[in-house]
């Protein structure tokens, strides 16, 4: 009877673990269930185990969903920066030859990259985190650490401008290059790259 009760509680907890993001669930769902089962087996008070499990679940679902969302934002930002870089290279490289079609396509690409990235990031920011609860002091060092790498495409873009600025003796391109490199340094520092 006791083991039947345990089986039911395990199934309920297993179902509740589905609230975690898929990546985390795939890796740790079975382990978390095993741990919860051990707690139920060895704790003198099952209601207390459940109370603590519910609190823990609310915190961990929220925290893992937040991390997952930051990871997605990073990928969106990286994709947008790459597209914008390709577009800018097209504008800068296409200018001397004067190909109007190529220039328009490059500007279009930049616009799509900027507007698309802004739209996707905005939509993601508007979504509330799971259960509307903060991570409860759990750190997300790995994900925040990933954001510093957005500095790399920005710096790459700065170097492209620097190259053309030097090649054409253009102060405008040089100024843009300095600005982009400064922004890149700020991103790197801001996300812990030189701590």
């Amino acid at each position, binding site marked *: 009877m006791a083991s039947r009760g345990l089986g039911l509680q395990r199934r309920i907890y297993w179902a509740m673990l589905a609230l*975690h993001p898929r990546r*985390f669930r795939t*890796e*740790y769902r*079975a*382990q*978390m*269930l*095993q*741990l*919860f089962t*051990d*707690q139920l087996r060895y704790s003198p008070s099952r209601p207390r185990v459940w109370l*603590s*499990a519910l*609190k*823990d*679940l609310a*915190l*961990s*679902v929220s*925290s*893992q969903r937040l991390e997952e969302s930051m990871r997605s934002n990073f990928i969106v930002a990286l994709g947008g920066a790459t597209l914008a870089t390709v577009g800018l290279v097209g504008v800068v490289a296409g200018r001397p030859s004067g190909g109007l079609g190529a220039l328009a396509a490059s500007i279009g690409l930049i616009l799509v990259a900027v507007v698309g990235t802004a739209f996707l990031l905005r939509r993601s920011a508007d979504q509330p985190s799971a259960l509307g609860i903060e991570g*409860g*002091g*759990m*750190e*997300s*060092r*790995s994900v925040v650490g990933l954001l510093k790498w957005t500095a790399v495409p920005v710096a790459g873009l700065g170097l492209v401008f620097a190259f053309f600025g030097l090649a054409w003796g253009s102060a405008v391109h040089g100024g843009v290059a300095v600005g982009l490199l400064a922004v890149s340094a700020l991103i790197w520092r801001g996300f*812990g790259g030189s*701590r």
Partner: protein
Amino acid sequence: MTRGRHEEAVGDFLPLPNATFHILLALRKGEKHGYAIMGEVDRLSEGRVRLGPGTLYGAIKRLLADGLIEESDERPDPTLDDERRRYYRVTAIGERVCAAEVDRLRSLLSRAVGRRPSLGET
């Protein structure tokens, strides 16, 4: 040069979050599975830090990603254990980070105690 870079890497992890520090301390006593880590953290903190399954595996996920712990294939006693359990152990860098956190806390504590008025005085 290499040593300096390693020290810088260790410093990047500090200060350690409470749960992370306790997990590292628990694993310094030997490889453990989730429930054993939870029990050891409870003992170490005299019941002040209680890790639930989600908090524990969230912290383990990050510790693995940061290379501070690793999964172990060995079982302390395979006949007494469920083979589905995963065991974890501290890596060399994890040991250094843990030691650095202890030094940081020790130094903070000595500064706090040495200040006037003494803590607890009104």
